[in-house]
């Protein structure tokens, strides 16, 4: 670790995500104080940490829902938010930012399904409108994805007719329909009733097993331990500790990590 102070070394050798000294402030408060890490292709990175530590903000920076104030983020080798021309970095325009977002999926805590569209329409909206896939093809693909998340019978339901767990599985299918290189999960189960958490985690486990690169902010320590290759613990805008889940969760080296884990376990 001493030779890699910025935690730049991911597990594999081909990094899909590289964050270098990412900084973000809201007004006068610095919410991310220099986040550096790498995520290898096919890796599942868990992110844990107390409320307000900047976990969501970090994911939102990767997906450009927030603009960073310092440092850089690369996804698939491509710089996020800028284009390099000679010795200059040109800020991207809205259309190019939208293009970059297409290969990055995001699953939100409160699902954010489109309430006025049916389950199938929610899933085909992106492929048809953004990727210009043919509607019939997109529909078939959507139905295959619904099969995969165990909701083949809910094709024509509206989101409001589904339980939270079902909505979150549709949200995952909606993300998958865009064939992303990377999926960001922001506490995907914390708005769910306890007995519905399992069904969402099962889908995410399958996804991890299929080789999808994922960054998962979660309070489900069991999931982090079983599924993630590495876990990062964030506190007050910094990555305090990152490494093998068995090490970070079971015998954390940092006092702050220990406190947090005992708090959540209680």
């Amino acid at each position, binding site marked *: 670790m001493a030779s890699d102070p910025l935690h730049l070394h991911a597990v594999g050798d081909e990094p899909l995500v590289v964050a270098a000294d990412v900084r973000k402030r809201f007004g006068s408060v610095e919410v991310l104080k220099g986040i550096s890490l790498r995520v290898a292709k096919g890796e599942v990175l868990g992110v844990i940490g107390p409320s307000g530590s900047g976990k969501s903000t970090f994911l939102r920076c990767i997906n*450009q829902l927030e603009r960073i104030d310092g440092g850089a983020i690369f996804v698939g080798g491509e710089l996020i938010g800028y284009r390099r021309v000679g010795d200059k970095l040109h800020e991207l325009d809205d259309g190019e930012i*939208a293009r970059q*977002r297409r290969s990055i999926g995001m699953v*939100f805590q409160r699902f954010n399904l489109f309430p*006025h569209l049916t389950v199938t329409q929610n899933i085909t909206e992106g492929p048809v409108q953004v990727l210009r896939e043919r509607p019939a093809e997109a529909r078939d693909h959507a139905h295959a994805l619904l099969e995969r998340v165990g909701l083949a019978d809910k094709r024509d339901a509206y989101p*409001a007719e589904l339980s939270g767990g079902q909505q979150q599985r549709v949200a995952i299918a*909606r993300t998958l329909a865009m064939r992303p290189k990377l999926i960001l999960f922001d506490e995907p189960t914390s708005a769910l009733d306890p007995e519905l958490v399992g069904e969402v985690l099962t889908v995410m486990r399958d996804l991890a097993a299929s080789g999808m690169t994922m960054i998962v902010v979660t309070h489900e320590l069991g999931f982090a331990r079983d599924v993630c290759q590495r876990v990062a613990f964030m506190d007050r805008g910094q990555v305090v500790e990152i490494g093998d889940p068995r090490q970070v969760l079971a015998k954390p080296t940092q006092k702050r990590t220990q406190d947090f884990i005992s708090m959540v376990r209680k």
Partner: protein
Amino acid sequence: MTDTVYEISHLTLVPRRHPGRAVGAAVVLGLLAALVYSFAVGQIEWSYVAEFLTVPVILHGLGNTILMAILAMLLGLALGVVFAVMRLSENPVLKYTAIAYVWFFRAVPALLQLLLWFNLALIFPYIGLPGVFSVRTVEVMTPFVAALLGLGIQQGAFTAEVVRAGLLSVDKGQYEAAQSIGMPRLQMLRRIIMPQAMRVIVPPVGNEFIGMVKLTSLASVIQFTDILHSAQNIYYANSRVIELLIVAASWYLVTVTALSLIQMRIERYYAKGVRPVGGNA
């Protein structure tokens, strides 16, 4: 304390009585009847009302009123959406243009706006592209065109505020979800945000539409022959003011009732996918 206290299954249930309701209904109906009677025996010649209700001049005015209300409202909606989106844009030019538009056209009375458009020739006697073509302004600014511009542009300012409130009412998560599947801004507004904003937009726009039906009567000052103008032309000649106003009011009531029914259907359409209120889930 013995358990017999809790034995109540043999008792008779007496539902709450609402004596006030029956009394209230009686009072309201009584007042209504008294009102109807007073109108019937008051100094109003109902035979004139019946006679003029369906004369061609009145029906023609009614048609003009409805046509103008629809067209001005469409123009207002189009402008309202454009200026609401401009107002929420990050581009300061667009934003302040929108703010100025709303400020000016909400503040200047409709009557004056109509007169200014109609009398545009006082300021621009000719319009056109210099050197290419040019026409006399009064040829273009017919009462119809002036009314449409005056009413529609003013309506746009009011609608812009309504649409803006609608756009702001859509959950931030919806914007983010649309962005995260890589939707460009305009597509996001059209496909995701607007359909949801409509639930909040339709009721006040319904109000405004009803207002517009009545506002068209202002256009009578620039010789647009709406229903009130037609009624006035008749009473200027025969002095039956109240009777002809009742004729006009009857048609307004019919039109507004029809509009309210249409509004209800549109509201129901945009409510699709929304769970009825209830439950704490």
